[in-house]
């Protein structure tokens, strides 16, 4: 009824290739952005902003990064957390060594370092294919974790390996309360999301998908596999690095290798798989699922039972429900939440008529 493309004629290819060709989608996007930027800050309390929305956004960014690599370019990676760590530590080190440097530069630096490392560990992808490629990224994961734990230079010789992240300042404003942090994170994440969307619909994006879908054919039509794959690794780890820096500065307030362990890498992989490979919205949906559901269940646990059942039992039931949910969603829609959203839209397109 309300979701109709009919009658929306594109008079130019430009219009047809715009980011959201369908009018209603654009509206929806504007509304969402408005909510994110204007409504949430008003209605949400510090708990919501600080410990639910910000982590959610940061991890979505990481998931977005991985989705570039795995979803678009088809290269599996189990080292996202390591690249996050690189971002965090690079940012921190630049910051403590050159304190007067503008903050956005610090974040960019974090991203770029991570991108460089990512490309190095991406090199094997030229020879190793499929699930075997996971080994390269796993090597990155464990090696980098070990590196940061062992060499005190990275932690600026602090007595304990854990560093408290220095305070953030952007254009002279102190970014110290959840609200301001939320705005910074949100802005960065939204920009990145649009950036990736643009890449996905232009030459590079097509090259990535070509490599993913059929690398021999891609090569035969003149796509340089090596360059394309490495570019994917670079962009992906750039986003991960950015996410890592944000995680350290905006979420935890500490920089420690243990915060970026293998478990985190798996989490991020789960996000894009559950959210939907090769779609920007998938990254957000997946992150929502993985980040919010446990917190939600945990809250419900204490909310509903009110301490009648031991917390231990609740914790274990949480695990089970979480796992059950994953399987359930797969059976309902194997291609992830993003696809589910698609189907919903197609249904909406025909509503109220069945065909």
């Amino acid at each position: 009824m309300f979701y109709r493309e009919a009658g929306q004629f594109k008079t130019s290819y430009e219009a047809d290739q715009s980011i959201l060709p369908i009018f209603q989608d654009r509206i929806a996007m504007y509304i969402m952005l408005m909510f994110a930027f204007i409504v949430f800050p008003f209605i949400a309390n510090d708990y919501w902003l600080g410990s639910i929305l910000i982590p959610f956004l940061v991890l979505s960014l990481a998931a977005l990064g991985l989705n570039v690599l795995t979803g678009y370019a088809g290269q599996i990676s189990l080292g996202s957390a390591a690249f996050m760590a690189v971002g965090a530590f690079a940012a921190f080190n630049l910051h403590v060594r050159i304190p007067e440097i503008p903050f956005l530069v610090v974040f960019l630096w974090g991203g770029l370092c991570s991108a460089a490392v990512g490309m190095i560990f991406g090199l094997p992808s030229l020879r190793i294919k499929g699930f075997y490629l996971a080994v390269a990224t796993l090597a990155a994961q464990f090696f980098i974790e070990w590196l940061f734990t062992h060499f005190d230079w990275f932690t600026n010789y602090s007595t304990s390996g854990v560093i408290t992240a220095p305070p953030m300042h952007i254009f002279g404003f102190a970014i110290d309360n959840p609200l301001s942090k939320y705005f910074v994170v949100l802005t960065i994440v939204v920009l990145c999301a649009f950036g990736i969307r643009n890449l996905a619909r232009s030459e590079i994006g097509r090259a990535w998908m070509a490599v993913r879908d059929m690398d021999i054919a891609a090569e035969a039509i003149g796509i340089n596999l090596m360059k394309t794959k490495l570019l994917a690794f670079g962009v992906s780890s750039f986003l991960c690095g950015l996410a890592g820096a944000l995680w350290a500065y905006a979420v935890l307030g500490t920089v420690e290798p243990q915060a970026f362990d293998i478990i985190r890498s798996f989490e991020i992989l789960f996000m894009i798989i559950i959210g939907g490979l090769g779609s920007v919205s998938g990254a957000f949906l997946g992150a929502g699922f993985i980040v919010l559901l446990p917190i939600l269940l945990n809250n419900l646990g204490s909310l509903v039972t009110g301490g009648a059942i031991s917390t231990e039992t609740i914790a274990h039931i949480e695990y089970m429900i979480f796992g059950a949910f994953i399987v359930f969603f797969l059976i309902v829609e194997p291609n992830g939440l993003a696809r589910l959203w698609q189907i919903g839209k197609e249904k909406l397109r025909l509503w109220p008529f069945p065909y």
Partner: protein
Amino acid sequence: MNNVVKNIKSNLIMSINHVNLSFGGLKALVDVSLNIYEKQILAIIGPNGAGKSCMLNIISGIYTPQEGNVEWKGEKRGKIAPHDIAKMGIARTFQNIALFRGMSALDNILTGRNLLMKRGLLAEVFYAGWAKEQEIIHRKKVEEIIDFLEIQSVRKTPVSRLPYGIQKRVELGRALAAEPELLLLDEPMAGMNVEEKEDMCRFVLDVNEQFGTTIVLIEHDMGVVMDISDRVAVLDYGRKIADGLPKDVRADKKVIDAYLGVG
């Protein structure tokens, strides 16, 4: 042989000289030489496993022969990556369709133009400046191809949902998008019904005439081959047993034997 030489209306674009190709013990091609002349349609025929596809794979650089060499426009071609060969102006389709299944027909054909596009990360991230312009320009070109192949209606549909015949067309479109000088078609009409075959023949001929593209195609349907090709080369067990005008080849003793399995 001489009747061929007589019939050269055009000059040599590629020549394959005495190539040998073998996988482990299996000899796929033995001392095969083949000349490809500009603006001609060359058909390679032969029984299954005669090494036809191997020829195409050598031309498009997916295989490199152990012996022999390939000359492109008079100069020898060393070991060279397929994507560079594509840049030289050689495009191809595959025997079993090799489309990018995750993408729409439009995107598939657009990807075919990637090698004509400029790459710049930042510009594309912001989808600004020349990045945007080139998208529009190439989109126009692609639309022309889409019109030419009469697949306007399925533009936006994911290729995985398209019927076989249409997929073949899209793949042809992807190859054409690169505006190649030499177009390699690996069984473009396999598994098609009569109408589809006729369409495809028309496309092939049109491409050859309108764009003046040289075409090498592999085909089993003798009728088709004899109708559309200027020259026919016959492979059998990795050896070239005949090469000439369709009518001569049809009359050739060795060819008949090869097909009827005599001798």
